[in-house]
């Protein structure tokens, strides 16, 4: 707004010559009005497609889910009867929910932790002065274009209990076969492997971008001081990546807690295993909603999942804030001093 209000004096002479003096005032004021109106309304017009659609397919369903979660939903009449928090109580008292919660966190940790560690190291390799950069960068991203369902089918085959590739190799090496589908922990490892396969390259590229933004003088100074590659990695690279790391952690938390495709495809029943070994929260939600057709309970579970994500997100945010501020200070002065010392 301020920008155009200061300008008319500069542009006025041009319009002066173009318009006859008598009509000038009226025309300009009309134009100015139009322009001011344009200036005020346009931004809202531009964001409105997003917000209107989002209100319909995003906000409204969220509120409606809350309403349904307080109801006993009748599919035939397609309406519900208000019953208060009974659905939440049912879920919280259901041992399957707690199994699903444990499984979700277990799979999430088994996928995100090793994935990020490996991603950092691959990114560090890509950050070196290598030949055929584009080729190597593209090669880490190939798995990302494969659908999670497709990845799950391939890995379910490789992790077969009897004839699977992995157990075949293990027994060839004289090791015992692993019960990939019977034991909860090993089923989580197998499912986490599918997630890791698809997402490691993606996170690698995000971390690589952050690494390339680190000023090269730091490394130069460290080299002069005789610090080796590994020492430089620990003292320069890792601290500078903190903010990006936490961003990656937050996004993979949000995604990881919603995991569905891989556990759904891990066997041919899709129920999460005979003893719920790999039942996750979203899989449980699907089984309640579209297996038992109980929408009230599914909605309550959706809200519980959202609250879990929210709590973890807020914890992450608090941690992020403190760490980012910390890093900013170091970037300013302390880091250079630290490297020189």
């Amino acid at each position, binding site marked *: 707004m*301020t*920008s*155009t209000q200061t*300008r008319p004096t500069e*542009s006025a002479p041009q319009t002066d010559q173009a318009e006859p003096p008598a009509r000038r005032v009226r025309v300009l004021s009309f134009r100015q009005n139009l322009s001011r109106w*344009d200036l005020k309304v*346009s931004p*809202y017009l531009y*964001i409105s*497609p997003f*917000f209107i*659609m*989002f209100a319909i*397919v*995003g906000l409204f*369903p*969220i509120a*409606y*889910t809350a309403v*349904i979660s307080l109801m006993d939903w009748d599919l035939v009449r397609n309406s519900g009867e208000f019953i208060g928090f009974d659905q939440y109580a049912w879920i919280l008292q259901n041992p399957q929910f707690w199994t699903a919660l444990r499984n979700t966190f277990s799979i999430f940790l088994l996928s995100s932790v090793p994935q990020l560690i490996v991603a950092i190291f*691959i990114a560090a390799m890509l950050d*070196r*002065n*290598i030949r055929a*950069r*584009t080729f*190597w*960068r*593209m090669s880490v*991203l190939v798995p990302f*274009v*494969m*659908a*999670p*369902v*497709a990845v799950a*089918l*391939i890995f379910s*085959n490789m992790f*077969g209990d009897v004839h699977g590739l992995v157990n075949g190799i293990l027994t060839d090496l004289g090791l015992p076969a692993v019960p990939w589908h019977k034991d909860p922990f090993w089923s989580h490892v197998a499912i986490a492997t599918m997630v890791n*396969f698809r997402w490691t390259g*993606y996170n690698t590229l*995000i971390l*690589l*971008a*952050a690494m*390339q933004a680190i000023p*090269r003088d730091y*490394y*130069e100074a460290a*080299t002069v001081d005789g610090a080796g590659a590994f020492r430089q990695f620990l003292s320069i690279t890792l601290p500078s990546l903190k903010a990006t790391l936490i961003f990656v952690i937050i996004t993979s938390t949000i995604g990881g807690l919603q995991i569905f*495709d891989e556990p*759904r495809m891990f066997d*041919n029943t*899709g129920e999460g295993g005979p003893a719920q070994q790999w039942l996750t929260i979203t899989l449980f939600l699907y089984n309640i*909603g579209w297996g038992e057709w109980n*929408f009230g309970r599914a909605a309550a579970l*959706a809200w519980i999942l*959202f609250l879990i994500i*929210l709590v973890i997100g807020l914890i992450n945010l608090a941690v992020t804030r403190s760490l980012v501020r910390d890093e900013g200070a170091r970037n300013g002065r302390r880091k250079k001093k630290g490297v020189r010392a």
Partner: protein
Amino acid sequence: MSSLNSPAPLTIVESSIPDTPQRRRNRTTRIKGRRAGFWVYAGLGVVLIGSLFPFYWSFLIGSGDSTTINDPDFSWWPAGNFLANATTVVNDPAVNFWPALWNSTYSSALIAAAVVVTSTLAGWAFSKLKFPGSKALLVFVVATMAVPTQLGVVPLYILFSDFGWTGQIGAIIIPAITSAFGVFWMTQYLRQAVPDELIEAARVDGASMIRTFWTVGVVAARPAAAMLGLFTFVTAWNNFFWPFIVLDRRDPTLPVALSLLQSNHFVDYSIVLAGVLLSTIPLLLLFVVAGKQLVSGIMQGAVKG
């Protein structure tokens, strides 16, 4: 070398900085000081094999027959049945391969186009136009990125079945045509890609807001829009949870069709994995054509951290 030598956001910023001796020296130091040795290539080679192995494995199993997987004389060399197995998948009436391929293609393309349009418009307003409430609204948009899909599926399903839209491809397009991530991404990009002076100049010359958006905003947004479109296309193509819920099994998208391969019909893994590879080929082709852009797009999005 290629434009990928430095991450995209840096190219934008750096191109405006004159090439001083200091900068030139830094670049040389970097090249001299951090030259990669044998172990780096060995490590990257291992990663490459890890990335490609599952593709090879599905080709290996998919080109065999039902006995391949428990054959004691297991061979790492593919047999010749891939085309036969793929034909079986394509012709199977329970899988609906061709409708699924078509559905995936046009729904993903429409979603990508819609996301690019809504995100570019909103991103332009958030990054370059000043209006009351813009900061709060942008924070709100970013906050919604934490809302899980699951929170909307029950009412959306109820609504769509009320309208008689369940089983229709529209039911997967409509909820996907906006993206909070897209808005944020465009906002970040346009904020650094377009100098404010350029917009002021256009306004001074009497351009209306929409003309300024069209001649300055859209032109500047093009590279970011291409990457956002590509990314959205891949995500939409691979999406499973909501299409699995709302689509009819007889009129699926590719991931839903794939899930049917395993669920009840086939226990023959040679056919399942042939189908998996077959369904992956379109996106692999896309990746060969546009993978470079996808890579730099992801690296560019990273800076938002």
